[in-house]
């Protein structure tokens, strides 16, 4: 069956050191229909197994934990720590709402320049397709949910692009 894909793209000014994306966070609307969603800057991190929020988000939204979660590797001590776990709705820039996402709370070391209070991990990224390109000295980031059946393959694209170049090179060599 055909399914609609919902995508967004962020064009950065230059080469981005972090993938910063505005998202909205709030209490799960299935439980709290009147819940407000506040705007935060998120970092997208393929090295993170799950998503995180900082204590600032917890305070500003007045969240309360529903469970506990062991997390490891986010700070210098590098020992597993028991963090509070919250349930939130997450709204992407294309207005797609991902409901009832379990997120752990910790300070994940966002720099003042990043000023990020949400970390989007593989629990969200695995729901769709993600591309990062750096052509022309500008980072372009896009995300599509649900994933495409025919995902972009950079190997195939490179073979297509290289084919005429190889042809020209071989021709030049044979002269």
């Amino acid at each position, binding site marked *: 069956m055909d399914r609609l894909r919902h995508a967004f793209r962020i064009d950065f000014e230059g080469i981005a050191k972090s993938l910063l994306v505005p998202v909205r966070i709030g209490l799960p609307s299935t*439980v709290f229909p009147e819940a407000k969603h506040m705007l935060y800057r998120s970092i997208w*991190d*393929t090295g*993170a197994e799950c998503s995180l929020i900082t204590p600032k988000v917890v305070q500003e939204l007045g*969240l309360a934990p*529903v469970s506990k979660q062991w997390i490891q590797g986010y700070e210098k001590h590098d020992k*597993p720590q*028991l963090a509070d776990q919250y349930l939130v709705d997450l709204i992407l820039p294309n207005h797609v709402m991902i409901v009832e996402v379990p997120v752990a*709370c910790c300070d*994940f070391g966002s720099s003042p320049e990043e000023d990020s209070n949400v970390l989007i991990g593989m629990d969200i990224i695995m729901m769709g397709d993600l591309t990062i390109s750096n052509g022309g000295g500008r980072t372009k980031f896009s995300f599509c949910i649900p994933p495409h059946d025919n995902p972009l393959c950079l190997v195939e694209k490179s073979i297509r692009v290289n084919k005429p170049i190889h042809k020209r090179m071989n021709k030049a060599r044979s002269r």
Partner: protein
Amino acid sequence: MVDVRRMPRGWMLEKEYKYFEDHQDELLKQSKKRFIVIKDDTLVGEFDTQIDAVKSMVQQGHALGTFLVQDTSPKSINAIKRFHSRVYG
């Protein structure tokens, strides 16, 4: 409603989580569904999903932060979520 802004971080659900740790074996034997709910030192419910547990407890008038929803699936108990890239050594 619990005002989390007035509470020190990590304060909530400590008692409930300790109860789960101390009684893990018997709670796992006892429960037939994946998610159990503990309030103070009592098992108060079992649910198929985390959100069903939260919904049911809130509808019964329990504030978030006053009950623990614990995943009892073997893969999830004591599972550690790892962060490989944002490590500051």
